[in-house]
């Protein structure tokens, strides 16, 4: 009994993880799929033809989303890493208050904050623009980077940097040749989280970008309001490929002996 239980439970979990993808994949290649049928009678590549139409909503959405998520990923990682280092390696006045400021956006809904700030974005010409959307996406992403990088820098030995300095390396050389390579796993995971959060964000983009900034989640939402489930399926597949590719390159740093997620565990 006991021996069967673990494989059974883990097997169920694996099934649960992959099962919802099954309907998405089938729909994406179905030419209609009437109710009682277990599988579609006919298949078609229409969903993907529409998806990869260079002038179509999806490809334009992919481009817009990629630009925004890349910029947000780089900005959030740069901004948050510095603060993560400060939390892990320095003592300073009002440190507790600063940590509170970093945690608060993980707790308070982004919708509440963005609704409040929209009036200022309109006033300063940031509404309906990519710049505005990028700024809004920094709210949920920077705190994640700070948490992840404070975990990374907690295991960082300053002696490596000091040795470089003693040997006459400039500050920039120390940063480039010593610090960055050591914390690279943390940076990779930070970028993954920031990119994925920005890539998936819907409501902040809608509030700030309005109809002017059409990211991929906007396109998928529009399809979901319609009834063309073949398009919904294909758009969903296109939507999840880039984050999965990114995961492929960072997954070994997610759980491991020197895991980078431990910072999140110290909230």
């Amino acid at each position, binding site marked *: 009994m006991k021996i069967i239980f673990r494989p059974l439970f883990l097997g169920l979990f694996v099934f649960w993880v992959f099962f919802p993808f099954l309907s998405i994949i089938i729909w994406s290649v179905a030419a209609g799929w009437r109710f009682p049928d277990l599988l579609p009678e006919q298949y078609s590549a229409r969903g993907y033809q529409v998806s990869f139409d260079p002038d179509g909503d999806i490809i334009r959405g992919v481009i817009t989303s990629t630009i925004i998520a890349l910029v947000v990923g780089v900005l959030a990682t740069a901004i948050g890493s*510095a603060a993560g280092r400060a939390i892990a390696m320095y003592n300073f006045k009002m440190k507790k208050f600063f940590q509170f400021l970093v945690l608060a956006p993980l707790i308070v809904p982004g919708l509440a904050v963005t609704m409040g700030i929209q009036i200022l974005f309109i006033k300063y010409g940031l509404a309906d623009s990519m710049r505005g959307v990028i700024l809004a996406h920094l709210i949920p992403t920077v705190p994640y980077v700070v948490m992840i990088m404070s975990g990374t820098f907690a295991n960082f030995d300053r002696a490596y940097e000091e040795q470089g300095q003693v040997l006459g390396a400039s500050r920039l050389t120390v940063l480039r040749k010593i610090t960055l390579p050591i914390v690279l796993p943390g940076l990779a995971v930070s970028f993954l989280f920031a990119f994925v959060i920005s890539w998936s964000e819907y409501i902040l983009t809608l509030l700030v970008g309005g109809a002017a900034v059409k990211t991929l989640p906007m396109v*998928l939402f529009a399809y979901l309001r319609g009834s063309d489930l073949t398009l919904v399926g294909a758009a969903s597949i296109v939507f999840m490929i880039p984050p999965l590719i990114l995961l492929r390159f960072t997954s070994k740093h997610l759980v491991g002996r020197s895991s980078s997620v431990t910072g999140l*565990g110290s909230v």
Partner: protein
Amino acid sequence: MKRKVRERKAIWLILPTVLVLTALFVGGFLFGILQSLGFFSVIADEKQRISLDAYLAVFQNETVRAGIILTFRVALLSTILSTVIALAISLMISRTKRFQSVLISITQFNIPIPHVVAATGILLTFSQSGLVSRLSNHFGVTEGSSGFPIITNDPFGYGIIMSYLWKEIPFMCVLILSALRGPVTNLDETAKTLGASYSYRLRKIILPYIFPAILSGTIIVFAFSFGSYEVPYLLGEPYPSTVSVVAYQLYTDRDLANRPTAMALATITSVVIGLLVYAYMLLTKQEGRK
């Protein structure tokens, strides 16, 4: 002297984060409160009248009241279930020798999948004309699409909870698994060599060690499932709907007089989540000291 220099350097390191979060997050929060009190009214010809009317309107709003119960139910069930299941899965994976790395990869697979896609998957799988309904119809368990129970876009919130579980169990697993792979492995090995049983090690070494990771995870998951918009919008009903969906509806309502009410609801929601998290941290701190 040296400490002073360090402190000044730390200021430069935190400055960008402080600027971003103060301007956007604190600014947005404060401007939301001001607008809930009647400042910056968008109705041009109306004289600015500062009042608490919007907060009264929130409590008198029937949609809000119905939404509060749903929101609490969804957030609590999602948090408790994802924590318990993720803990069980993580402990089992950590004890499994075969396929361990494969299983760890599978727990990570969902993490980067957007919530909108997760909700789409749940919808296409569990709706009355979804894959499960087709299977159950095929094997004669239920009859037709209307014979299948309504578990997406349902009043209880099953669909919303399933979607959150699908995303948050893996998230909790990654947190717990990375804590399990820390220094606790050596402690556990030592205790094992000394003859401690698994249940003893679990209670005295493993659980106390991964407790902080679980704590952080529950806070993030609770706050997220309480205030998120996409999933309840796609998998919920128009009425009752979670407070975030109601807040957005009020905000974008044709009647601009509803905007302060939306701001008041958003403010109340933020304060309630903040207080709950604070109370939970105080409670668990005492628990940790025992």
